């Protein structure tokens, strides 16, 4: 029953002469929530940007939903059913909240009214502010918008890069609740997070990325109980 939706094999990515990703393998099964943990500069964002086609890999392959997408440009990957909510939210500041959401559905002939209403249901703040310019929203609201915008295309796989970065704890809860709702609606989620504990609680499995290589992988319980992970990412002392 565990069908692979996304499979990354031996991925290498370089910025000029600097190798950022040095041969990583990972996969995400249909319906799973998978998280990638790692310190700043470990290569998490680079990995995600390469998967969604914004960066080109120098070696390796990426397969999505049975299709090789290593050479497919970013804008074509969206219509295959992958959606990427980037680090730093990147909402369109001078577009209204609703226009931002409609841009999320750009690949669909007509945006899905049900999806839009569902987003307004799980993130009601967006409905209250739908006519407001996205740039005038608070950081947490912008993050809600970035996530809502990413699911407007009705993706099979939702990629989230640091959704809780810089948010107040109360908003972190709202965001994680929304991710859980999205996952429960049947969307597969690949999540990069610096809040390792919250991410592992939500995820089925996790990978730990260090300096461009995967050093640990396993189920969330395994990672939560591993001493090395606890020390390095969960802030527990021996």
């Amino acid at each position, binding site marked *: 029953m565990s069908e692979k939706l996304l499979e990354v094999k031996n991925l290498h990515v370089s910025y000029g002469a600097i190798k950022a990703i040095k041969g990583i393998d990972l996969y995400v099964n249909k319906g799973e929530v998978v998280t990638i943990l790692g310190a700043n500069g470990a290569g998490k964002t680079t990995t995600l940007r390469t998967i969604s086609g914004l960066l080109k890999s120098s070696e390796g392959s990426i397969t999505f939903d049975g299709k090789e997408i290593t050479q497919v440009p970013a804008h074509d990957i969206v219509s295959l059913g992958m959606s990427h909510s980037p680090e730093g939210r990147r909402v369109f500041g001078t577009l209204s909240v609703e226009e931002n959401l409609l841009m999320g559905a750009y690949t669909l002939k007509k945006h899905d009214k049900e999806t839009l209403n569902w987003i307004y249901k799980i993130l009601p703040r967006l409905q209250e502010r739908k006519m407001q310019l996205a740039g005038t929203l608070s*950081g947490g609201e912008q993050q809600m918008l970035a996530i809502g915008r990413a699911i407007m295309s009705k993706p099979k796989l939702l990629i989230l890069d640091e959704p809780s970065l810089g948010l107040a704890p109360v908003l972190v809860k709202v965001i994680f609740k929304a991710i859980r709702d999205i996952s429960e609606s049947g969307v597969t989620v690949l999540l990069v997070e610096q809040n390792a504990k919250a991410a592992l609680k939500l995820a089925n499995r996790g990978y730990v990325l260090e300096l461009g290589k995967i050093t640990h992988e396993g189920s969330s319980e395994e990672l939560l109980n591993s001493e090395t992970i606890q020390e390095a990412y969960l802030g527990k002392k021996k």
Partner: protein
Amino acid sequence: MDIFLQQLVNGLTIGSLYALVALGYTMVYGVMKLINFAHGDLVALSAFVGLTIYTQVFGEGITSLIAVITVFMFTAAVIAVVGVLLERLAYRPLRTAPRLSAVVSALGAGLVIQNAIMLIWGPNMMIFPSNLFPSTIWNFNGIVITFTQLMILGLSSVLMVGLYFFINRTKMGTAIRATAIDQDAAKLMGINVNKIIMIIFIIGSSLGAVAGLFIGIYYRGVTFDMGWMYGLNAFVAAIIGGIGNIPGAMFGGLMLGLFNALISGYISSSWAETFTFVLLIVVLIFRPTGILGEKVAEKV
């Protein structure tokens, strides 16, 4: 008072032309952060292409509404194709290069187009036939409006209102605005940025083509190097309005046209150019992002 009203009419006419050309600069800048210095030469090219289509295909003697519409449509199409080729050949290879490289490439492309016009049509001034539009003149208590002026004002207004609605009310227009804000984020929405840039060049070049034809019809004489002067004025108009801002380009164009006409009417037409740049400097000192400015809604 008569001079004032007459110059108001003349100024709005020239201003509409500046605005049409300025839109090409501002749209390309908005999406690519590039000043397309070859844009003025596309405007000049349009006048020559239109003149050739008119004289070769229809023959100078014939005027009909269909002939004029055909000339406008075909010329706009030709210039749109040249604009798209310009982007492919001169700008796309430099998309990730430093900004200055693309600007130099733009200046070079402008020179190529200018010289191509000179090689094809010769270095001498060519004269537009006077019979494209009826020579009807309306006289309101000494204030004269020609049919050509009315056409310029009318068609430019229609095009500008149409563009405004396209950019602000349609899905494609919203995608253009989104691409102008953040190209990577736009790609993640599934927007093909290359296609958006192509559309920008098609629209900008077509508007420039309409302006080029009107310049030919209104002023009659066209020269291979006239793109420089009209381009520069329109570029100044785009900056005055706020480069990257579409209503700004329209406003800047009309304002510069009026300003030029009033200087010509009350001081001297030979001073108009000088005052254009005085106005530019004054605007830049007091409003560095232009009068309407770049639209900003970023929360820090």
